[in-house]
């Protein structure tokens, strides 16, 4: 049934393609090199780093998807990678969701515009491990075991803590989650997305739940809090982005700390606050599309991201790179950027997949009721 509907869609897409544009067929000459790159599980499989770089340069392109330039410093990361290796990086759907990345990979399968690499939220990554090509970067051993797949099918890349960003020129500094119910915050408090759809907003509800005596799996207190916020007229149902933050439409934003810190570069009075006793952490996941049209470039991208240079670029964007501890020991970490990360006190809670699943079931049934 599924395959039938998919083939119908493929036929439709093919018909449209034939009808619309003269799209160039994917080049066949790199087939031999690509064949080996597509199955390479480490740079050594290709004959070392230099061979990987040569193969990637030959492909000349890399397709990335759903990477906003102001998210964890991806704008600079993409530019640095492109300049360093002379590879053209095509960045599609910068504001897409993790699910959009998977949908694109399925819909564009076999075309040279399909995404080569993914940067996914944990839930989407866990559900789609069959789509990933296992690959171990040179620094694989320095990544903590609980933050990677043993075969390298997926590896956590950077993480952060849920935080409350606010424009100190417009609102008083909150000292706790409950402060946001005060009249000074009327029509000013926004979540980054809808928690039934976006990972960041989901983390926001979990964080409030933890602060209000719930837990990562029992998010009822979090949902109830946003319901109260709405009743008080303080909840602002606007999706915050750099434009709304700069123009002052969204003066208070629940978001990952690395995103809130990034806002401070645009609005000098923007401050980031992580409530004590409610430190909720989350890591994103990096993976290679097993049907990547540019398999060598995809693998080189991973090597770059997990090199000291790539990790420090993430850190520069306020995100905590996965190799932070090892790099701190080795002294290769960007000390200034590391010291600039928002201070947290309390034990970080990193929700497990099982906890998230419980929380989602409650959210799907109750979120719209609370804020709708």
């Amino acid at each position, binding site marked *: *049934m*599924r*395959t*039938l*509907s998919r083939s*119908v*869609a493929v*036929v*439709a897409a093919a*018909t*449209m393609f034939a009808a619309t544009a003269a799209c160039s067929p994917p080049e066949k000459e790199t087939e031999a090199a690509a064949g080996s790159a597509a199955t390479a599980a480490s740079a050594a499989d290709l004959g070392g780093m230099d061979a990987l770089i040569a193969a990637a340069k030959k492909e000349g392109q890399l397709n990335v998807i759903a990477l906003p330039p102001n998210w964890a410093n991806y704008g600079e990361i993409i530019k640095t990678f492109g300049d360093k290796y002379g590879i053209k990086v095509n960045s599609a759907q910068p504001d897409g*969701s*993790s*699910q*959009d990345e998977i*949908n694109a990979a399925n819909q564009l399968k076999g075309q040279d515009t399909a995404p080569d690499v993914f940067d*996914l*939220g944990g*839930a*989407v990554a866990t*559900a789609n491990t069959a789509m990933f090509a296992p690959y171990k970067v040179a620094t694989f051993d320095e990544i903590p075991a609980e933050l990677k797949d043993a075969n390298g099918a997926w590896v956590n890349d950077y993480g952060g803590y849920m935080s409350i960003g606010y424009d100190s020129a417009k609102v008083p500094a909150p000292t706790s989650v409950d402060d946001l119910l005060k009249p000074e915050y009327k*029509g000013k408090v926004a*979540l980054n*997305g*809808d*928690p*039934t*759809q*976006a*990972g960041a907003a*989901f983390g926001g509800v979990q964080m409030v739940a933890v602060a209000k005596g719930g837990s990562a799996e029992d998010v009822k207190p979090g949902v109830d809090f946003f319901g109260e916020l*709405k009743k008080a*007229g303080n*909840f*602002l*149902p*606007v*999706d915050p982005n750099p434009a709304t933050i700069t*123009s*002052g*439409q969204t003066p208070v934003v629940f978001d990952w700390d690395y995103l809130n810190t990034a806002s401070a570069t645009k609005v000098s009075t923007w401050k980031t606050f992580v409530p004590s006793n409610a430190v909720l952490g989350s890591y994103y996941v990096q993976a290679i599309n097993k049907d990547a049209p540019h398999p060598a470039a995809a693998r080189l991208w991973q090597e770059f991201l997990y090199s000291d240079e790539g990790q420090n670029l993430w850190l520069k964007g306020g995100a905590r790179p996965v190799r932070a501890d090892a790099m701190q020991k080795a002294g290769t970490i960007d000390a200034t950027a590391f010291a600039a990360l928002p201070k947290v006190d309390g034990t970080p809670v990193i929700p497990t997949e099982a906890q998230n699943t419980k929380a*989602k079931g409650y*959210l*799907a*049934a109750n*979120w*719209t*009721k609370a*804020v*709708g």
Partner: protein
Amino acid sequence: MAEIATTAPQRVARRPRLRGASSLLGTVPFFAYVTIFLIIPTLVVVIGAFASDAGGFTLGNVRALGDEYVVAAFGRSITLSAASALIGAIFGALLAYALVTARTGGLLRRMVTAACGVLAQFGGVTLAFAFLATIGLSGFLTLWLTEHGFDPYANGVWLFELPGLTLVYTYFQIPLMVIVFLPALDGIRPQWREATESLGGTTWQYWTRVAGPLLAPAFLGSTLLLFANAFSAYATAAALVSQGSPIVPLQIRGALTSEVVLGQANLGKAMALGMVVVVAVVMTLYSLLQKRTARWLG
């Protein structure tokens, strides 16, 4: 008693009929277009609505339409569509009537109908942005009103909820009503009014006994068309509302793109099937009313 049937006079000149294949050839682009953009997507939706994630047949997706939040979303969608259709129909009909009293082919009438043609298609991000820039939280009208001691958002940010959506939808519903209702008003002949008056009828009687009954099917039909137009609108709401997905099209968006609650793509298709059913009912009623109207508009 056999009556003498009067036969209609035979048509003298007949259009030469194209034969077989060559006449079908002309319709190929149309059918190809309809197949790609209408039939195939509909099939994908219908098949998906009854497919499980594993690929087998299931009624689970359709059963999930009974979930409280889905039913509530359908309720809100129907409320929003009905409200914006009614408001649009009433104001649009009044505007159309004002136009009919203007001279046919006159500059005013041509300008207004041209403007309506544009505004009826004004939607999506542009429309949402226009409203945000005007009466959004930092819109210029909002700021001006707040400066003068009136806070339009004192009781909550209604622009991003159903009342706001109704207002924004009405903006494209009124011009659409003008376009679809104008031909019916044009069909009302001045002689009928004269006849009413010469027989001693009042204006009230003319509207309740003559023009009203004649216009009613066209008015109701147009209202149904407006309803379907609002019910299926997506881009405007998507650009305006980012929290809570109050209406069905936004719930479908969530089901297809959520990175939190996964594996709901087929539930999204089942919701789309539900929308297809609602629109099909509405459009059937619309075509029945159109038939009635066509009887005397011809």
